[in-house]
């Protein structure tokens, strides 16, 4: 339409309480998704001739109700937190990083190599940062490829990251299968240094669960991401590019440079996530450990509404579903959880634009 829309006075689209509105738009979609998931869950459980109430109770007992289960939830949530943070970071800049799985794997691989290269007995205070740097660097390198291709050639990062996933995972497989594996397995030898203490070491009731110090690192990472996004100059520029690239350009921000930074850092965050499995759980790199974590990271970012705190909560939620599936396996197959995960993502994807449309329309009508 020719003509500027500013010809007439534009009425505000937000009434007096902005925080309530932001909260509404942010929180309603995940709640809607939760509701939809519950309904679907009920249907699936009933199709197995079981009582939903009983199954849900069993699920909660198996996940939050006992220490081992809770520990497992925390462990799984840690990896999801890292990939979720990575995806949400990219989305804040308007970019879709689907390469979480390969970045995570590359990071874990680098951490394992570092752990092997360091001499036995290296104190954790030295080993952990070094492994993390290696992991972050590996993930960052993988993340920088789509970043470069986008800024230089305009290649869409969605396809490039998906393609790169396959390439990098194949490359890692070649490294392991060819040279570095312990015979009869597809994993590297146990690392000499950088082993992270388990939650069970501190609190014996968690014995057997894989939750480890990486959990703290994940929470700290969320804090760092929050600080970067909302308190730093780089974060101001990044969010500006994600929200309104024309205005960012007008304000002197180099959009291309922000893209490069965003995807590289996103890859870095996912890469560091590799320490959960490698340093905290198995103490070696195993081919395929990252399977599915990238796509679940997308789900976590989406449900967590791209906010570090939301991501942590969402990671915890999805980890609960995953562990819960094992807990209820006697009554309902754990495959039900796979279905629910897909349903939740779909429900959130659909409700985000729909909720926004409904809320803004209702607000406008009430203001008029």
């Amino acid at each position, binding site marked *: 339409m020719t003509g500027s829309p500013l010809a007439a006075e534009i009425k505000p689209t937000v009434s007096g309480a902005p925080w309530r509105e932001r909260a509404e738009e942010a929180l309603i979609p995940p709640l809607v998704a939760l509701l939809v998931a519950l309904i679907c869950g009920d249907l699936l459980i009933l199709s197995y001739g079981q009582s939903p109430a009983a199954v849900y109770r069993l699920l909660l007992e198996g996940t939050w109700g006992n220490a081992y289960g809770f520990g497992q939830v925390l462990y799984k949530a840690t990896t999801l937190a890292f990939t979720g943070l990575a995806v949400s970071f990219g989305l804040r800049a308007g970019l879709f990083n689907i390469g979480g799985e390969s970045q995570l794997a590359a990071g874990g691989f680098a951490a394992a190599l570092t752990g092997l290269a360091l001499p036995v007995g290296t104190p954790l205070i030295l080993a952990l940062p070094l492994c993390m740097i290696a992991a972050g660097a590996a993930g960052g390198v993988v993340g920088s490829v789509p970043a470069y291709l986008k800024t230089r050639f305009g290649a869409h990062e969605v396809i490039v990251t998906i393609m790169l996933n396959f390439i990098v995972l*194949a490359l890692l497989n070649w490294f392991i299968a060819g040279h570095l594996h312990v015979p009869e397995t597809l994993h590297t030898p146990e690392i000499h240094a950088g082993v992270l203490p388990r939650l069970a070491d501190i609190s014996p009731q968690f014995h057997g669960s894989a939750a480890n110090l990486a959990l703290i690192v994940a929470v700290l990472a969320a804090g760092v991401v929050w600080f970067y996004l909302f308190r730093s100059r780089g974060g101001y520029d990044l969010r500006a590019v994600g929200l309104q690239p024309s205005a960012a350009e007008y304000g002197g921000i180099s959009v291309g440079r922000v893209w490069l930074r965003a995807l590289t850092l996103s890859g870095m965050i996912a890469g560091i996530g590799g320490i959960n499995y490698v340093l905290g759980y198995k103490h070696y790199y195993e081919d395929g450990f990252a399977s599915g974590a990238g796509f679940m990271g997308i789900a976590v970012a989406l449900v967590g509404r791209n906010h570090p705190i939301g991501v942590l909560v969402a990671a915890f939620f999805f980890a609960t579903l995953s562990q819960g599936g094992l807990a209820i396996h006697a009554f309902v*197959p754990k495959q039900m959880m796979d279905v629910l995960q897909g349903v939740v993502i779909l429900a959130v994807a659909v409700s985000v634009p729909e909720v926004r449309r409904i809320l803004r329309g209702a607000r406008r009508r009430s203001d008029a």
Partner: protein
Amino acid sequence: MNPVTFLTQMIRIAIPYLFAASGGVVAERAGIVSLTLEGFMLSGAFGAVLGANYSGSPWVGVLTGILAGLIFSLIHAVATIRYRADQVVVGVAINLLAIGVTRFFLKLFFDSSSNSPRVTGFGGNIKAAGFDNPLLWLGLLVAPVMAFVIYRTPFGLRVRAAGEHPDAAESVGVSVKRVRYAAVALSGMLAGLGGVYLALDQHQFTDQMTAGRGFIAISAVIFGRWDPIKAAFACLLFAAAETLQIQLQGSHAIASQFIEMIPYALTIVALAGVVGRAVPPAALGKVEG
């Protein structure tokens, strides 16, 4: 390496790609991102086995497989066209949903976490090297037929308009929404057929049996510049690489992992424009109100 066996194996491997890529071409040309081919294929594979198992006839399996693909594609269509949800996110969701649903029903119907019972497929005569399978011939025909549809029918013209300049199409009274629904449904059925072929060829359904073939199909679409014939050639190229990998297994000439990478590396190269730019349909991924 016998060139004839190489070729026949290559063709057999290419068939699922040909089906799915042809579907992907029409949906993307209409403007809808089709990362969902993997999910459509998987659901088609399961649907085929379900139908074939309970009816004893592979043809029933074909119908149920197509139906399964169609159902998933309609979910995709409604979410992206009616609700205007982000097409990439919905794509990821559909793929995960397909894995979950097929696993769930695999357990429910066949009480297994890994595979279904054996079903009858087509053909079976070793000497025919797979060419006694009617689906194989269908797969070889699907790309030329799709080319015909896109370039020589009114529907194809509207698809091309919807993907490049939907406003222009609307301005002459073409319902872009309807065209896109049809295109996505078509992609679901075709990709489903790809899964049907796969499952019936292996005579069973195994968990996540598509193993990324849907992504190779979308790579073929991109590498083939969204043209059905070029995408078909890309499918053959990728299938050739895969055949090479299988035949070279154990010979240590080139590590198989590198051959595995070929389709994906080529797609990135196409996107980066090293050998001519791969420019997608202008309206791909954007759904206006």
